[in-house]
Structures are given as C-alpha cells and as structure tokens.
C-alpha cells in the first residue's frame, strides 16, 4: 500500500489498531494450539481438577514419553511420514508437468481437461470410497501405504496443478525459448532454466500437498486396517474410540502429529503468497 502523509497522533492510533487487531488474530490462531500443549503436559490426575487453569501446578512429559514408548505411535508416525512425503513428491512432479503443459501450450482438449479437474473438486469424496475400495482390492492396494499414496496423489493433483500453473505463468515464455535457441531441447530448457526459477513454487506445492496428505482421515480409515499401515490420524481416532481414553496421551500424540506439518507449512507459506502473486500479475 502507498505511503500516506499523516499527523503523528493519527499514525499512533493507526498502528495501535493495526497491532491490536493482529494480536486478536494471533490469540485466536494460537490459543487452541497452546491449549493442546497445556493438556499434553498436565498430569492425568490434575486433568479435571485443574481443567481451566492456564497452566497446571505441576508439569510432566510422561504423556509424551509414554506415547513414544508404550504405543504404536512411532510406527504410525513413520507411516504418515512415508505416505505424506511420497504423496507430496509424486503429486508435485505430476502437477508440475501438467501445470507446465497448461501454462505453455495451446492444444485441443485442454479446456476439457481443466473443466474435468474443476469438477473433481466438487465430488463428495465419501462417494468414491466404495468404488475405490473395489478397484484397489484386486490390485492388492488396500491395506497398504502404496494404495494411500495413489489415492492421495489423485486427490491432490488438481489443486496442485492449478498452483503450479500459476507459478509457471509468472515465468516469461521467452526464457525457455532463448534456452531452446541456445541449444536445449524443450525438456532440457524446462529442467535447466525453468525448474530452478520455480523452486519456490515447488516448495509451496510440496508443503501444501504434504499438509493435506498428513491430515487425511476418511480414506486412511476405510482403506487401511492392519496396524502396519495405519497413519497418524487413524491412530489418533482409535485412541478416542478406545474404552478408557487417556486424554493426556492423546493430546501429546496430537501435538507430536502437528509438528511436521506445522514446520513444513511455516517454512513454505511465504512462497505460497509469492507464487500466487506472480501468477496473479500475469493472469
């Protein structure tokens, strides 16, 4: 926004309102996460008696250590990491190729493909569970991490493609044409010239897909049953449906689950804004 000449008093009021509002947002965004952490470090015996205290009179890490040692969570954690990591990697690769194609070429059928991608965003995904289950069973892909990766990749590719397309749109076409004249094939120009320039976009897409895959519950619940392939969300949910729920452990597990996605997102959100801006300028 532009700079405005203003009196000092006006400026003080202006900035106080600005920071005041931001403080409200910060509180709203972070308080639930703080509370998650608070419950996780509260000893079980104080959970209800000190339920509404801002900080328990006694703090403990036992919930965390128990989650790590006494439960299957480390396994779930690894499963989730494998599934989300592979999904992010493969989706971004596929979406980058498709986004590049949308951004750089005009061809017959492109509009149809784009509409199809938009339509997939409208599905009540619940509807697909039974058919997907039936398709994956003979392929031996139910109850396996690979099956989850395939399904998640398909779900995330449309949005990731639009995202990547907007990043490519921000890079002038001249650059790869210059590279092609300099002696690259189109693919070579893509790899050597365009790819390094889209790194922020790729980071943003990776992070976006990773967080989406990390959160997915429904399909993980339906497609996977053996403990070897259970992901974090499902593991957490089984916690809830167990007879005696250990809330402290559950929250500790939840907090641990939060960390990878949060770190990833924390690092990439800047590029997300940047990349969408670059695309917006052109389109």
């Amino acid at each position, binding site marked *: 926004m532009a700079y405005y000449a203003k009196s000092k008093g006006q400026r003080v009021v202006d900035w106080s309102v600005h920071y005041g509002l931001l403080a409200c947002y910060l509180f709203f965004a972070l308080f639930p996460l703080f509370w998650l952490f608070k419950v996780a470090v509260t000893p079980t015996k104080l959970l209800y008696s000190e339920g509404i205290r801002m900080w328990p009179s006694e703090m403990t890490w036992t919930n965390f250590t128990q989650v790590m040692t006494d439960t299957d969570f480390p396994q779930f954690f690894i499963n989730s990491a494998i599934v989300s990591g592979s999904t992010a990697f493969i989706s971004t690769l596929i979406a980058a190729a498709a986004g590049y194609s949308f951004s750089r070429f005009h061809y017959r059928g492109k509009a149809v493909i784009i509409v199809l991608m938009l339509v997939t965003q409208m599905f009540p995904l619940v509807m697909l569970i039974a058919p997907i289950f039936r398709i994956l069973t003979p392929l031996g892909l139910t109850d396996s991490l690979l099956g989850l990766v395939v399904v998640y990749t398909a779900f995330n590719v449309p949005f990731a493609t639009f995202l990547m397309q907007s990043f490519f749109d921000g890079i*002038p076409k001249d650059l790869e044409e210059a590279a*092609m*004249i300099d002696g690259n094939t189109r693919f070579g120009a893509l790899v050597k010239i365009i790819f390094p320039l889209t790194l922020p976009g790729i980071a943003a897409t990776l992070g976006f897909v990773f967080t989406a895959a990390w959160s997915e519950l429904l399909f993980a619940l339906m497609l996977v049953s053996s403990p070897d392939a259970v992901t974090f969300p499902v593991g957490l949910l089984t916690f809830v449906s167990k007879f005696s729920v250990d809330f402290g452990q559950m929250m500790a597990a939840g907090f641990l689950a939060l960390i990878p996605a949060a770190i990833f997102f924390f690092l990439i959100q800047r590029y997300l804004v940047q990349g969408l801006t670059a695309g917006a300028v052109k389109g």
Partner: protein
Amino acid sequence: MASIQITESTKSYGNTAVLHGIDLNIQNGEFIVLVGPSGCGKSTLLRMIAGLEEVTSGSISINERIINDLPPRDRDIAMVFQSYALYPHMSVEENISYAMTLRKSPKEKIASAVNGVSSILGLNGLLERRPKALSGGQRQRVAMGRAIVRDPQAFLFDEPLSNLDARLREQMRSEIRKLHRKLNATSIYVTHDQIEAMTMADRIVAMHDGYIQQVGTPLEIYDKPALKSSHSTGLISLKARRFTCLTLKKSCICLMLGQKCGWSLLYKFP
C-alpha cells in the same frame, strides 16, 4: 554464414491466418530489417525462422536445406529478444557461455570466446553479476553477447532496442551495424521504427497485415514507396513528418524534426 529462403510460407493460429504466402530470399551476410506496424506478423515470421513457431504451409530453408521441422537448437541461429530473456539465476558470464556449454565446447575455448565478446561489448567488469543487478542498457548488451558468442549462421533480432532510451538506442544501433560489418553474419532485424529500418538495413522488408508489401534498399523504399496502401507501413509518412532527407549516391543523411526527441541526425554510411 547462411542464406535464407522463405517460400510461400503461411502461418495460421486455428482459423485466423496471420501470415499469407511470404516469399523472401535473404543473401549471405545481408542485414535485413523487417518493418511494419505492430501486429502485422513480424515477430511471427522471425519466430518461424527460429523454429519457435510451426510453419503452417510453405517452407523455410537455410543454405538450401529445408528446416521446417528442425528444432531451434539444431538450426544454429542466435536470437535477441525484446525482453532480453536473460536467465535470472545465472551470472552474466554463465548467460553468455550457456550455449557453448550446452554444445560441450572445451573450457579454454569458452573462456576466450567470453573474453572476446565481453571486451567487444564493454562487459568486462560485469561478468560475475546477475542480470538483476544490471541497468537496461547493460542487460541489452548481455543479450547481444549471448547471441554473438556462438558465431551462429544467422542472427535474429526482435525489437531489441525498444526498451532503451533514445540516446542509448542510437548508440546501440550503430554498434549493431558495426558488429555486423565485422562478423558479416546474415541478420534479420525486426522493428516498428522506420528510422531504425532506414538507418540500419541493407534491405528493408516492409510488411502489412501478414503480407510483404515491398522489399528494397532504404533508398528505393524512400524514393518509391509502395502506393498500395500508403498509410500502412508508415515509411511514407516520413515525408509528412517534416523530414528533410538528403540522398546522396549511396548514402542517406536524414535530418529530422522529431515530435519528441527534438532534432537528431540520422546517418547511414555506405
């Protein structure tokens, strides 16, 4: 060095025809300027020669060999873009040497070529910089350097000077001419600026609405403008724009009262 033949070439995007039956023979070592109003198809023709656009029908050949389906990298052509299209993540040196690196030239050869080019273009102190840290004029020079370092069959220029201010433009014009005399490489230069066309060309190709309207030396064009649609190319309007042009036998001295730039002296020596 190369001669370029364009035979009955057309270009359409879907159902819209952009170029209609272009015929043009370009001699070895010639400096051709394509001139015409914006949107008349100059860039499209240039990009077809470069291999960046498919030829809808007809043929384009270099040294009598049809190259319609040859990808750009196999045509041995260099091009200077209007936007310069410098690789933002590479230094000036890497930008200039990129084509040679791709062709796997030996290191010493690349180094000496880069050295030669950068001293011709006055880029010596800038080799380590990224394009972002250069002025518009310097970027333009890097784009030129990237083209000439390869010693290609032909040079293509797409309005390479239109982003420079008037003084720099004039300076670069004469430098490009000087370079051409030195390298004597076939060059095709696109502009919508008649003065640029008049002062730089061996032969001018005047285009309008996807047709070639007239081909000739600057003097021929000036003396006998095609009358078909005299308002079109704007070359004729030179007279209307209060030009005083003294034509000598093989050179032209134009004295012009520009509307924006005041008096300026345009010259073209033999």
